[in-house]
């Protein structure tokens, strides 16, 4: 991420009480992860100790301190999807791409996430890839869906 863009984001929120969270969110959104040197830069520019920034960045689950893959695979494991068999979907995804939730494949093709109910329980079990919902799926559908993401 180029440093001019980072400056722009920081300037946008400078002076706001919760600027750290807002800045981290914007950078996470654009860059998909938070490199250490970016955090150091934020710390300097906003005069917030790095330890405090790390406290926030490691606490909230949306923030990632590791590079993310090109495609984000999210298997919903909320209560309702769980009850409708999401565990088997997650197992199948793990088998196919070879990483666990929270990890990224070594070729940076996929990052896998699970958890948090997405509020569309009628579509469950479901898997969201790059924001696209694949609903009411079975483990057999997983391979065909992932094939489309290179």
């Amino acid at each position, binding site marked *: 991420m180029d440093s001019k863009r980072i400056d722009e984001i920081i300037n946008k929120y400078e002076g706001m009480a919760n600027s750290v969270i807002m800045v981290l969110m914007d950078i996470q959104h654009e860059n998909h992860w938070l490199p250490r040197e970016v955090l150091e830069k934020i710390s300097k520019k906003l005069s917030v100790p790095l330890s405090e920034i790390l406290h926030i960045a490691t606490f909230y689950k*949306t923030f990632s301190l590791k590079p993310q893959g090109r495609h984000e695979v999210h298997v919903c494991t909320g209560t309702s999807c769980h009850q409708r068999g999401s565990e088997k979907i997650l197992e199948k995804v793990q088998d196919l791409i070879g990483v666990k939730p929270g990890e990224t494949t070594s070729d940076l093709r996929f990052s896998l996430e699970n958890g*948090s109910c997405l*509020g569309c*329980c*009628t579509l469950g079990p479901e898997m969201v890839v790059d924001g696209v919902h694949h609903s009411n799926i079975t483990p057999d559908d997983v391979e065909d869906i992932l094939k489309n993401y290179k």
Partner: protein
Amino acid sequence: MARISSAKELEEVRKGIVSKKDPNKPCVAICGGIGCLGGREDLVNAFEKEIKKQKLQGKVDVRVTGCHGFCAQGPNIVIYPDEICYVKVQPEDASEIVKQTLVEKKVVDRLVYTDPNTGEKAVYQSDIPYYKKQMRNLLGTNPKIDPRNIDDYLAIGGYSSLAKALSKMTPEQVLDEVKKANLRGRGGGGFPAGLKWETARNAPAELKYVICNGHEGEPGAYMDRAIFQGNPHLIIEGLIIGGYAIGARQGFIYTRHDMPRLRENIDLALKTAHDYGFLGKNILGSGFDFEIEVHLDVGIFVSGEASALMRSIEGKAPEPRPKYTRTAVKGIWERPSNLNNVETWANVPQIIGKGADWYLGIGTEGSKGTKMISLSGNIVNTGVVEVPFGTTLKEIVYDIGGGIPNGKKLKAIHFGAAMGGSLPAELIDTPLDFDVMSKLGAAIGAGGLFVMDEDTNMVSMNRFFLDFLAKESCGKCVPCREGIRQMLRIMTRMSEGKGREGDIEALEELCEVGSLASLCALGKTTSSPIYSALRYFKKEYEASIKNKGTPPNC
């Protein structure tokens, strides 16, 4: 748009809007709720294209609305003015609907809802059994308005309660009305909102805050986003009225970061409310100033807890704090901060508009008004429901929810997800009521009703809840951080058929300590699913130790 400067002017503006609207102009209202995949663009495009093709531009409106509620039959559309309801509509159906229904005024039979039990067809929303038994005071307007158009909200009487409060009532009178209506918090606790407002009002401080909690992190709960995305002005109006009653000039909305359309609708609603003069300085000429700021959760369950949420608004990590001083007295930046849930705020305009006496006529003795419920799990009609308090669980699960799919039997009804409790099928005649449900060990919580069929194993279900909480615990206090971990260890081995003698007793002890000594509701209510399971499904726990296995029904 120039700012509206008085209640009288608002009525004139409203008249102008209504007179410009032709009630007979056909309109295709497409559900934009997340269960219908957010008003899928391909579906919206198909209708727009078809209207153009059949030369009906300007004669027919297409409206992307908030959630209609019947997610299981989505994508849903309603054709106005006749209110014909079509279910499971696909883009390829657009041409037939436009030609048949909009031009020739005929009903497309194959897209009409058919009752699976009786085979009867229901052309209008009011004929569909799912809607028939509901009382949709809050959700009912969702199909009728475009959440991105403030004029639609004004046309149905929007902001008239705010005008009434500001022009005809003192802050004390507004507070008294809410107290009299016995509005109870819809976020989980069921605490009387009026009392909380009073505490914040009486707290000595120059600056006070009101907060709308739209975090909705509870798995299986999705009613708040249905109303917030579908009718954001309703919540904003409630929040401004609350600010007036409490004496706050600043409001905060805390909502989800992962739903772009929800965020867009809120931002747009705030901007237009500002343009029209419902926010900002000297609102409707009353001298009352009020602003609202939006903050986003960044994906952690505990930040929905009041004191943690306030830390998050301050820009810190959302760790809860002990509540020896209430947040209504010392919250954000140590100032009085009154926090209520989205649905609670949504109830405020109708209480002020129609009066507490009207509101008191709905519900049970201790629980007034309606409650939005989201149905999930093993249930035919997954979706958002709004019923008056006092409706039995049986009516919700069977008459509205359509029962259990695949011919299975009902095993348990669960409220409150990982921090709630389960009721066995025998208690299905229980009425929906804050106090009755709490006594039975299954507090309503935010209103996520999760249905489990006969194949469910209660031990592994409880293990699943603990696993969720173990990951979401903030780790600040020991009883929660360490207690949940130990409980999870025990439940894991029980669910694997390796339970030991004494495990149930150890669980009970951990539950007791956790519920007494944890800092916040997350740790305090971790024990709720286990307590309720030990109350109603103890045999299953015992069997998982004795039989070294976990049959679902013992």
